């Protein structure tokens, strides 16, 4: 399966990004092949609105069926849950660490938005 993880950089050693809609990048990791690709979220970092919705579309289009992030707002959650993607929350230091915890089933599943829109 593919899992999307919010990241501040382009490698597995990059610090984890706790934001979803305005995360720097998304690392799309394949749990079978252990390979990963990177989606740049720069466009949404600068968006005045709708960053969460568009970021959720990136995740959807990547084919990921799970998302690891720190916080998710109401509109993004509507898209993500509407597409039956499971959301896992962590405060891991790096992307690699977050993915390791995910593969060991040590992450908590988030069943609804945990922050308001524009919470930062």
């Amino acid at each position, binding site marked *: 399966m593919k899992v999307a993880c919010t990241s501040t950089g382009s490698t597995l050693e990059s610090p984890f990004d706790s934001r979803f809609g305005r995360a720097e990048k998304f690392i799309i990791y394949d749990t079978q092949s252990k390979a990963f690709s990177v989606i740049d979220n720069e466009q949404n970092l600068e*968006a*005045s*609105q*709708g*960053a969460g*919705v*568009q970021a*959720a*579309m990136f995740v*959807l289009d990547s084919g990921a069926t799970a998302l690891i992030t720190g916080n998710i707002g109401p*509109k993004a959650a*509507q*898209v993500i849950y*509407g*597409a*039956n993607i499971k959301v896992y929350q962590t405060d891991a230091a790096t992307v690699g660490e977050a993915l390791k915890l995910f593969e060991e089933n040590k992450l908590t599943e988030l069943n609804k938005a945990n922050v308001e829109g524009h919470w930062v």
Partner: protein
Amino acid sequence: MKIAIASGKGGTGKTLVALNLARSYPKSVTLLDCDVEEPNNDLFLKGKLTELKRHSVLVPKLKNELCDGCRICQQACQFNAIIVIAGKAMVFDDLCHNCGACTLLCPQKALYEVEHEIGTVTIRQKENVRLVEGRLDVGKALAVPLIRRVKSEISLDESPIIIDSPPGTSCPMVWTIGETDLVVLVAEPTAFGLHDLTLAVETVREVGIGVAVIINKDGLGDNRIEKYCEKEKIPILKKIGFNQKIATTYAIGEVLVDTDENYKKLFLDVWEKIEILVKGSRRHEQ
């Protein structure tokens, strides 16, 4: 004559200037409160309500059974307000800018438009001042459609008109200052004040309107605003000193010029300079 009072930075004294200009004017005047996210002129004016109108915008709604998930609506939307998930479009009313493109382009005719309420426009009268105020509903994100409704309440023969602008230099401010004769920027003499004044001046010039400055809280900082205005050849209409009396009057919800003759003179002098500037720019256009 339409004068917008704007600032860039918030809290510099836009409402103070707009309100006192309106109240000091010897004849009838119209005051528009376009700061629709937090209108506050009436807190001081306490006018008598004469009209109240609810306003809505058109947003798309989906006939679920007709949608085939083609994503044309999603591609047309510049604001991420419509997204196709699991083969069906999903609309986010609060992100919609009401352009109508999705509804127009949908090949299945699966979208139709419904009214979505965003706020209230009220008209109040207090002696010489006719106040038109826009108030966005709590939680609504789009100020511009409501600002346009506020501005549409002015009749052609009405003059002068004072417009209290929202802070910042983004769409709400740009729409507010549009089609005015002069933008008066209220600035405070600090580093932050100058930074945001510079942004505001650039924005107003881009729109192509004349600009003048009022320095508020003069004495609080230094002379950096004056230096900047001199360099940019921007007239300074007045320096309003940093004075506790202003804050006290404001805090108890009173209008400065109604309680103090000296300030009334000060604002009448500002009016004179505004009229000279506007006449001068009109002559220049001819």
